[in-house]
């Protein structure tokens, strides 16, 4: 066989594969893109349904019903401040529990812990994040209130915001610890070495050098944790806002419903509520409010984390 003379000229078509192989490769691209479009559709559907029903509510409710003695949707009294104050109280209590212990665990794991300890504790934190929230709700009414809080407060209600806040805090710890630990570990080793080289003790290095350098990440952890606490439903529904009504009350030793627990309570009676004055639409109105609040907080946290990632 002659190698030089009668070799046919090689064209681009020869280098391309068969038509069917190319066609298949091309088709699947559209499938993947379609799937990505579905995720956008989910967001669009959430915003559309929540916003349209919430609008029905806003346009029909008499605005003076939005400030009253409490939240009694089936009687047409929709005092928003009751739910907002309770939500804020419970979330702040949750942060008082979750931030110190979450940050403490994060600093310990990133600065102090032996690698072997770290290797065990990190997955443990992940495991903790998976504890179902109903279980923490049961924990709040069967342990936190009767076994702990009654020792300190004589006149505490069986359902109370304090226990609910503590349980939500426990639930949020793993999230805060994990974001905080990531941001502490993002601080370059050189900063720690420079500090130690100047003769600083480990505690000085941790508090004066590493923590300030990771400040924005710690802020992001707090904001995202706060947003998660606001959106937590089951703990509050079981431990504080069981009923579908709540009277305005500032005491954290009393029961009180939040944005989320009021939604759950309305949802429990969806079949009865439908068509009943505006109670059904108020469910979507609360959802819209909750969606907007958490979206703003999460985006804020996201921006801060991004800025941190670009710094080092």
């Amino acid at each position, binding site marked *: 066989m002659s190698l030089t003379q009668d070799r046919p000229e090689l064209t681009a078509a020869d280098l391309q*594969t068969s038509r069917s192989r190319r066609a298949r*490769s091309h088709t*699947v*691209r559209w499938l*993947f*893109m*379609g799937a*990505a*479009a579905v*995720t956008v559709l*989910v967001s669009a*559907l959430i915003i559309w*349904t*929540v916003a349209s*029903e919430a609008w029905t509510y806003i346009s029909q409710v008499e605005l003076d019903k939005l400030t009253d003695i409490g939240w009694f949707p089936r009687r047409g009294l929709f005092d928003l401040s009751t739910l907002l104050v309770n939500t804020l109280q419970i979330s702040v209590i949750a942060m008082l529990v979750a931030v110190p*212990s979450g*940050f*403490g*665990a994060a*600093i*310990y794991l990133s600065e102090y*812990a032996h690698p072997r300890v770290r290797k065990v504790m990190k*997955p*443990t934190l*992940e*495991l*903790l994040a*998976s*504890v*179902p*929230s*109903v*279980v*923490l709700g*049961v*924990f709040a009414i*069967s*342990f936190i209130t009767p076994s702990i809080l009654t020792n300190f407060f004589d006149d505490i209600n069986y359902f109370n915001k304090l226990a609910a806040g503590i349980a939500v805090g426990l639930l949020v*710890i793993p999230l805060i610890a994990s974001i905080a630990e990531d941001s502490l570990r993002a601080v370059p080793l050189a900063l720690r070495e420079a500090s130690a080289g100047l*003769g600083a*003790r480990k*505690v000085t290095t*941790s508090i004066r050098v590493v923590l300030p350098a990771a400040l924005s990440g710690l802020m992001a952890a707090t904001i995202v944790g706060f947003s998660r606490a*606001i*959106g937590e*439903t*089951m703990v509050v*529904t*079981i431990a504080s806002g069981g009923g579908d009504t709540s009277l305005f009350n500032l005491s954290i030793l009393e029961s009180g419903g939040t944005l*989320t627990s009021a939604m*759950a309570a309305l*949802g*429990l009676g*969806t079949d009865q509520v439908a068509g009943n004055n505006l109670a059904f639409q108020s*469910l979507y109105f609360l*959802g819209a409010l*909750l*969606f907007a609040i*958490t979206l703003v907080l999460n985006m804020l946290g*996201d921006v801060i984390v991004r800025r941190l990632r670009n710094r080092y």
Partner: protein
Amino acid sequence: MSVLTTPAGIAADAADVLRRRPGADIAGAVFRWLLIGATVFATGFLGVLLAVMIVDGWDVLSGNLWYFLTNGFSQRSAAESGVSQGIIGSLQVALVTGVFAVPIGVATAIYLVEYAQDSRFARIVELNIRNLAGVPSIVYGLLGLAVFVQTIDRFTKGASVIAGGMTLAALVLPIIVITSVEALKAVPDSLREAAYGVGATKWEVLSRQVLPAALSTILTGTVLALARALGEAAPLILVGAATGFLSFGDANMFETFTGPYTALPVQIFNFARLPGADWGVNAAAASVVILVLVLAVNGLAIYLRNRFEKQW
């Protein structure tokens, strides 16, 4: 210390630093123990939680656990009630969740990592996924109620296992996308380039090289996401799991997917709402069941991930 540093002077300073025994650093020791305390608090409450639930639910767990696991809800008394409907319902819902969320989630991740070249659409999808991940779970319940229960009721037959599963699929979709993106990004480009080099089409590179390499990580992410779905109660309350009970009657397995249903976490919620100590025992016992279930699934996934984590 003299202004002029000499080797002798540096050595003297270094010796001075070394002579400071760790024990003498009181602030450092206090700080360290505070951190250890925070870490123990953050991770140790899981033990307390389990212990409390086991003690509270001991009457059921020690006496008639098998009866509890294999019998349905009875309105007559707590002692005659079991959680079999919840367990079966949860497994069915998780199945539907997986069927919808896994293909869409993994395909979206493939699109983002392998196809999208920083296009505007890709950036919208990414931002959208990040925001969806922070939406409170009960808001997904509103989506489920308005869209899956009411709008497409021809397909879901109203508040059914399918509607519940689709709701949770929307909830875990961002988790699956995020973990799958990480898994695909971890596959080194040299693998792709080698496959292209021997003439493979894009689809062949993906299906024969990239996906098999990323499969174990994608799987663990999926399992973690489904475990999350297993513990969710709030969105299911809005899509009818609180009032419905799985009917064993003469319905065949397929029909139960379109009938009324309940889920294990929702049953715990129902037990916790009923007045009387004996229902509390059931709530605690069911909490132990769900904790064991969720922790086992999660622990397995985390173990597998750490075991098969590839070092490229």
